[in-house]
């Protein structure tokens, strides 16, 4: 459920190359499911910036973001104590009911943040969680230790082999027993195109698109699915594997 509030920055610091976490405290937020996102008002910019939420609990939540443009660069320079206007509780998030007993989580680069709360929730439900992370190189690796500490079996692959397995998430998946009940993923389109060829189970993909509003009003981020036109911000960002029309994706 969308909420608009002003939150105070509790911490905002770098956790890997070009990657930051901003912990916000304040009034109640609207997050109820892992995989939802926030839309952040950055002073001086017109459109809000949609940002992944890695964790939330009563009275605080954490945004994890890569500096990819003026908005996120400006966010990275904000200081503890500053106030930020944020729309929270956006998007549908992952469906935990579908996980089965042994879900596989696959995340690449800036798609890693939502895995934190997702693993926390699945482990709390008594599920056995395998998690595969892909990065370009060691400097970009983040959350590996934290995700392991939550109780998941975590494998990392880097393209240049500087950390973990050398290769892609698909190489890491191949190193695991193929006995998963369901998968959840978040990452770039080339990663999705690679994993959908090696996975024969159902799962959920999280999509990214340039957004106007973030709450379903402008139709800026629409995508065609097997069940009709959907808004990535409101009907997604998480879509079921059987609903996605891959030929339409770039």
């Amino acid at each position, binding site marked *: 459920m969308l909420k608009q509030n002003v939150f105070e920055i509790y911490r905002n610091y770098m956790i890997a190359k070009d990657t930051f976490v901003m912990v916000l405290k304040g009034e109640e937020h609207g997050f109820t499911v892992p995989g939802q996102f926030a839309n952040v008002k950055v002073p001086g910019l017109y459109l809000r910036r949609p940002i992944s939420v890695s964790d939330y609990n009563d009275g605080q939540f954490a945004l994890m973001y890569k500096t990819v443009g003026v908005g996120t660069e400006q966010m990275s320079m904000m200081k503890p104590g500053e106030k930020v206007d944020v729309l929270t509780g956006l998007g549908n998030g992952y469906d935990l009911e579908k996980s089965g007993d042994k879900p596989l989580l696959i995340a690449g680069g800036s798609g890693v943040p939502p895995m934190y709360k997702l693993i926390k929730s699945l482990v709390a439900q008594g599920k056995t969680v395998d998690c595969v992370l892909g990065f370009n190189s060691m400097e970009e690796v983040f959350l590996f230790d934290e995700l392991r500490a939550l109780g998941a079996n975590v494998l990392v692959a880097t393209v240049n082999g500087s950390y973990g397995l050398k290769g892609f998430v698909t190489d890491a998946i191949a190193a695991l027993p193929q006995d998963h009940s369901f998968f959840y993923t978040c990452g770039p389109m080339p990663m999705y195109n690679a994993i959908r060829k090696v996975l024969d189970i159902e799962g959920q993909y999280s999509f990214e698109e*340039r957004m106007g509003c973030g709450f379903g009003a402008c139709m800026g981020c*629409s995508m065609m699915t097997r069940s009709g036109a959907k808004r990535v911000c409101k009907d997604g960002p998480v879509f079921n594997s059987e609903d996605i029309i891959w030929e339409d994706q770039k």
Partner: protein
Amino acid sequence: MSGKQNRLSVELCGLALDNPIIPASGTFGYGYEFAELYDINILGSFSFKGTTYEPRFGNQTPRIAECSMGMLNSIGLQNPGVHAVIEQELPKLRQVFDKKVIANVGGFSVEEYAKTAALLDECEQVGIIEVNISCPNVHNGGMSFGTDPKAAAEVTAAVKEVTKKPVFMKLSPNVADIVSIAKACEDAGADGISLINTLLGMRIDLRRKKPVLANKMGGFSGEAVFPVAVRMVYQVYEAVKLPIIGMGGVSSAEGVIEMMLAGASAVQIGAANLVEPFICPKIISELPTAMDKYGIKNIKDIIGGAHNG
């Protein structure tokens, strides 16, 4: 408002509005997303998402781009088609909105505009038909009707022919002479004028060295376009006798007052809804204080007040 005069009330072709605030087409869907956020009955009315005869997905994404004090969109009239609007969206809207809605109609031919308007004419919930002859994001239609006085007049006459409801023609600012288009609509029987739609613009991504939008060009809206909108409302008010719904970059109670002084009888709020979802309730609650500040008793008294004699 019984027993006490409502300082904010205005009127559009016999349709009484509790206040002049109307969310603009394309920024408010069919009302439902915002009804989850606040009671949308506090609005004067709202203009629903531009509706065509057939369902449309619109253009390829990305179709949104950031600008200084504004944004570009190239949605391209995504909508479920007029039949789905009448059978699904309007009944759903009735659950959350007691007032008359403004039906925004898009089209690709004179006949299509008329066919769509004729179906909406039968909907009791529709108070005004707003004809979008100014969408910059679709080819062979949309804006081309709004940039030629003769074509604008043809669409106006064709829609007037099929409906008893007031018809407002929504004009494009992408013209050399806005007055000639407005006059052509007036002469063809329009009941009112809505302006402005978005200004045609482009952004280029420096990393990819290509336009940000998949459709290359898009409509520019947001606070940055406000002075252009005020100027055009002022010019059209001088030239035609029809009521005007003014819009373009309005995001404050002061902006509403300025737009009405220029000649608007009511004011639409567009892009501001997307970045500040509670902007319309905020403007409505702040209007009386802003009116006090500028010595305005009733808002309807200031319509066109910036014009001489």
